[in-house]
């Protein structure tokens, strides 16, 4: 056996040792094992992502970031590396970067297996991050609007007062006009605040099975759009038919519905509250 093959075999054994330690929550021992494996074979991305997972458990986020970046260098398609890098960046409050990594992980994860628990977990983290961002931003927006509204009202009243002292008579009409103006101002500000008020998500952006906003919409030959993961579960557990039209349907006939996906994205960008998970 060549020395390189020997090293590879040894490293694999160390990985198994690490996995065993990890499963017993002995993260220090697991990190040691993976570190040795990396020293022997630094080009295997799994050794890096496994070690990153241990660091994640210990909340050592800088190290998570380092290991994940290394793993991504070795394998651009590593779902776990992009996912944990995203989490690490969110921890550092590098919001936009973190979200981008999570979205990347989500796309890669869906390509590999749209029904996997990883995909669901990544979505939850992504939705939570987006919701928190919305909460933060909308509070700021609402506060700014409130302040601006107060200022505008005061200025308008001041102007109305000045106007009325110049003119004489027609008191009733002037008062009515003034009240109308104030009411109109109120409406303008209400309109401006509308997008940030949680309401109903339109039905056409929701799957008929999950009743929730689409994440990965696919369209069937009948023209109905469903959430991909849940439709695959339906094939497995119920039968190979379109749940609404009951026409025969084979998984290979599903086509991503990109238009709905775009519409969902546009809606969520405008109404971040819809990221809230029950």
């Amino acid at each position, binding site marked *: 056996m060549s020395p390189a093959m020997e090293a590879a075999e040894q490293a694999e054994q160390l990985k198994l040792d690490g996995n065993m330690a990890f499963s017993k929550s002995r993260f220090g021992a697991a990190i040691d094992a993976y570190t040795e494996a990396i020293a022997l074979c630094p080009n295997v991305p799994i050794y890096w992502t496994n070690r990153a997972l241990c660091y994640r458990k210990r909340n050592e986020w800088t190290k998570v970031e380092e290991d994940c970046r290394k793993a991504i260098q070795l394998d651009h398609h590593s779902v776990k590396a992009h996912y944990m890098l995203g989490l690490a960046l969110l921890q550092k409050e590098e919001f936009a970067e973190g979200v981008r990594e999570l979205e990347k992980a989500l796309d890669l994860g869906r390509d590999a297996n749209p029904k996997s628990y990883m995909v669901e977990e990544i979505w939850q983290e992504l939705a939570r991050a987006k919701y928190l961002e919305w909460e933060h931003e909308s509070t700021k927006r609402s506060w700014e609007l409130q302040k601006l509204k107060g200022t505008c009202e005061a200025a308008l009243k001041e102007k109305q007062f000045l106007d009325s002292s110049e003119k004489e008579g027609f008191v009733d009409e002037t008062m009515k006009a003034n009240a109308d103006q104030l009411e109109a101002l109120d409406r303008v500000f209400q309109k401006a605040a509308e997008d940030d008020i949680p309401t109903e998500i339109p039905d056409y952006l929701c799957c*008929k*099975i999950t009743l929730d906003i689409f994440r990965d919409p696919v369209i069937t030959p009948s023209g109905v759009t469903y959430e991909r993961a849940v439709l695959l579960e339906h094939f497995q557990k119920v039968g190979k038919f379109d749940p609404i039209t009951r026409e025969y349907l084979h998984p290979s006939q599903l086509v991503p519905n990109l238009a709905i996906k775009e519409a969902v994205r546009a809606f969520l960008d405008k109404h971040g509250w819809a990221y809230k998970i029950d």
Partner: protein
Amino acid sequence: MDLSRVHKELRECNKDVEVSGIHIALKSDSLTHLVGTIPGPLGTPYEGGTFKIDIILTDGYPFEPPKMKFVTKVWHPNISSQSGAICLDILKDQWSPALTLKTALLSIQALLSAPEPGDPQDAVVAQQYLKEYPTFVSTARYWTEAFAKESSLGVAEKVQRLVEMGFPEDLVRSALEAAGGDENLALEKLCTA
């Protein structure tokens, strides 16, 4: 089970109870045991009645149909007059996850309007429906009066009679409800309790 979906279903269904008359309530703290309410369809012997349906959701929901049966006693060829079991294809092999609790209850309401005696659940009722239709109609109407109307004289009188026998009123009411309005069954329950 998809809890988030069940939450949404309840919210959606109960939002337009004014229009549909269909209501779903929790039976306990968990979302697995529910009670649906449907009004008897107009122009049928069930008109004016309010029918309660016991709903059990399994872990597989919405990929498995909800288990539904009548709590209120009802005289109908496709519903057991004894157990309340319902013979309806969408609650069995014709279920689809695109259906909801509300659409299932609407289908049951439609079944009340349009019995299918060719595929009976209760053979006695089905025979009567086919051979003595007028008797069927009057029996079904009588059962609606007796069991599906809370405000009807029936219940008030039954409660009063049982209370006069010396049982506390709240126990009487819950026993009557559990017995689907059947006074004798309620008395049995009260005596053995």
